[in-house]
């Protein structure tokens, strides 16, 4: 187990270096660079383009005056020292910017993930138990609608229904103005109320996918011989379904989670933009609009690292849950 872990973690290094290089090359495709954008903005419009000296000075201060390969080398060297660089647009170190935002996104993402997995698996089980029954047909049709919906549209419709018409829930931000003065419990309640709509929005799509997947794998599991054995032993229906069938059926669903963590992060860009949630997704969007290369590189790297770590964790969990799987590769 420890040897396996060490080997997998060592494999991370070349993959991550490869990802960094490709990300860097993609961002190099941009016409113009940060120095030109900043120069054009600071002296208003096209007049600044003539100001070559100023652009050159900015370029030198951003480290953009050397050829691309030298910039790439400098970037990799910084990374090797765990230095994510400086965001020239936000005027702060990248690590600080990301560190300040990551909590909000983690709260949003993990809550959504938990709801999506739990809800999706339960719905899938419900459908698989009475396949093609009334419940199954209704839930399956609903799920088909759920994964055909644009996420941002769902977000806006929820805002219309619960924020504008019913006025039940806040429609933006993470806390009320002046909430800092309240007690700890009131603060938690405040955040929870702000969390409802973004979490629902972000989890609906994945929930539908998990439900569909669980339904398929539960249907197979319920036809196995060991289920017939369990039933003939006279076990109660919940024991058969949850202890015998679901335990086997849930493994393939778990492997899906690895791929979906990345999607969740990408989805949070849209959700956080709509709900002005002060997290990484919003930061990503701002970084994209502002061409903040250092920040974007770090966000891309971070999300890749997150996906890889999750899939490693899931491999470990699956191996723990299913003794037939051996950790060797």
């Amino acid at each position, binding site marked *: 187990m420890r040897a396996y872990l060490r080997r997998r973690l060592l494999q991370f290094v070349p993959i991550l270096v490869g990802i960094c290089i490709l990300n860097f090359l993609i961002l190099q495709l941009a016409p113009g660079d940060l120095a030109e954008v900043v120069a054009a903005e600071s002296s208003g419009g096209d007049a600044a383009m003539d100001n070559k000296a100023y652009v050159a000075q900015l370029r030198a201060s951003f480290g953009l005056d050397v050829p691309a390969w030298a910039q790439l080398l400098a970037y990799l060297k910084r990374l090797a020292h765990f230095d994510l660089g400086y965001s020239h647009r936000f005027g702060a170190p990248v690590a600080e910017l990301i560190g300040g935002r990551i909590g909000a996104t983690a709260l949003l993402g993990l809550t959504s993930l938990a709801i999506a997995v739990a809800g999706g698996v339960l719905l899938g089980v419900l459908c698989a138990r009475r396949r093609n029954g009334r419940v199954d047909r209704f839930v399956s049709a609903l799920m088909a609608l759920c994964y055909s919906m*644009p996420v941002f549209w769902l977000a806006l419709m929820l805002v219309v229904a619960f924020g504008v018409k019913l006025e039940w829930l806040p429609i933006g931000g993470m806390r009320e103005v002046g909430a800092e003065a309240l007690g700890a419990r009131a603060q938690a309640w405040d955040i929870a109320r702000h969390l409802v709509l973004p979490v629902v929005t972000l989890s609906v799509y994945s929930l539908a996918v998990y439900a569909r997947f669980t339904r398929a794998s539960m249907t197979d599991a319920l036809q196995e011989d060991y289920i017939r054995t369990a039933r003939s032993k006279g076990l109660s229906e919940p024991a058969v379904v949850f202890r015998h069938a679901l335990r086997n059926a849930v493994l393939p669903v778990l492997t899906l989670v690895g791929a979906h963590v990345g999607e969740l*992060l990408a989805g949070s860009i849209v959700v956080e933009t709509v709900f002005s949630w002060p997290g990484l997704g919003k930061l990503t969007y701002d970084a994209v609009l502002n061409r903040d290369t250092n920040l974007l590189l770090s966000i891309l790297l971070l999300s890749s690292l997150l996906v890889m770590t999750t899939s490693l964790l899931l491999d470990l969990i699956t191996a723990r849950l299913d003794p037939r799987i051996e950790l060797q590769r």
Partner: protein
Amino acid sequence: MTTLTFRLARPRLPALPAQAWLSVAVLLLVLVAALCAPWLYPGDPQDMTLPPYLWPGQDWGHPFGSDLMGRDLGAGLAHGARVSLLVGAAAAGLTLFIGVAVGTLAGWYGGWVDNVLMRLTDFFQIVPRFLLAIVLVAVLEPSLSVVVLSLGITSWTHTARVVRAEVLGLRQREFVQAGLAAGMSQTRIVLRHVLPNALTPILVSTSIVVAGCILSESGLAFLGLGDPNLLSWGAMIASGREAIQTGWYMIAIPGAAVMATVWSLNVLGDQLNQYFNPKLRD
């Protein structure tokens, strides 16, 4: 004398569930709207032709109403259908092209070619798809072809893996070995004998790929990363957002159009999948 009469079997429509017919109907409607948009709503759909805040049904000459700037929502829907279908089809085409090419090369040649191509596939699978698409569009400046390109570049990995697995299996089969022994060129074997056998599972799910691309396109357009000269459904939703307090229909209508189209393509893909892979049948 007896006459033999041959009666042709009457062509019978396959027994499909109601939702399959509904999906075909929706797709036909969208297609017709897209094709007829220049006649139904001549001129630029961005032109302000109506009084603003016209609710749907207030004026039956313009059944979908108008947005906050007085643009006809009906015109936006019809012209937006062109953008959605065009981007969906083109991006799906690019996805299939890259996926099939990478998958075939990797599966057929094996060895280091396979290794390099599959590591590349890993990369595109590890970096979140939509995030990469956003970055690509922003970096290359939004336009129709850039949107198509970035959606194609970010969504081919699944296709490549499926094709690779199929080709890998077919490569060992007797008819391929026989072709090699008979001295046929590799290109000819791959194009004439391997690919036609490997493509069924991919072609069957094409409409699901198109659906995914349409969904992503609307997301990009909503974030302001669509072609600024074209009115698409996602862009309509984004501009309706400013009227969320008073005119929520400006958001609801184009969003429903996206959902109906994507839903229909998904249902169609599922049905085709079940038809061609009897193993999946319920």
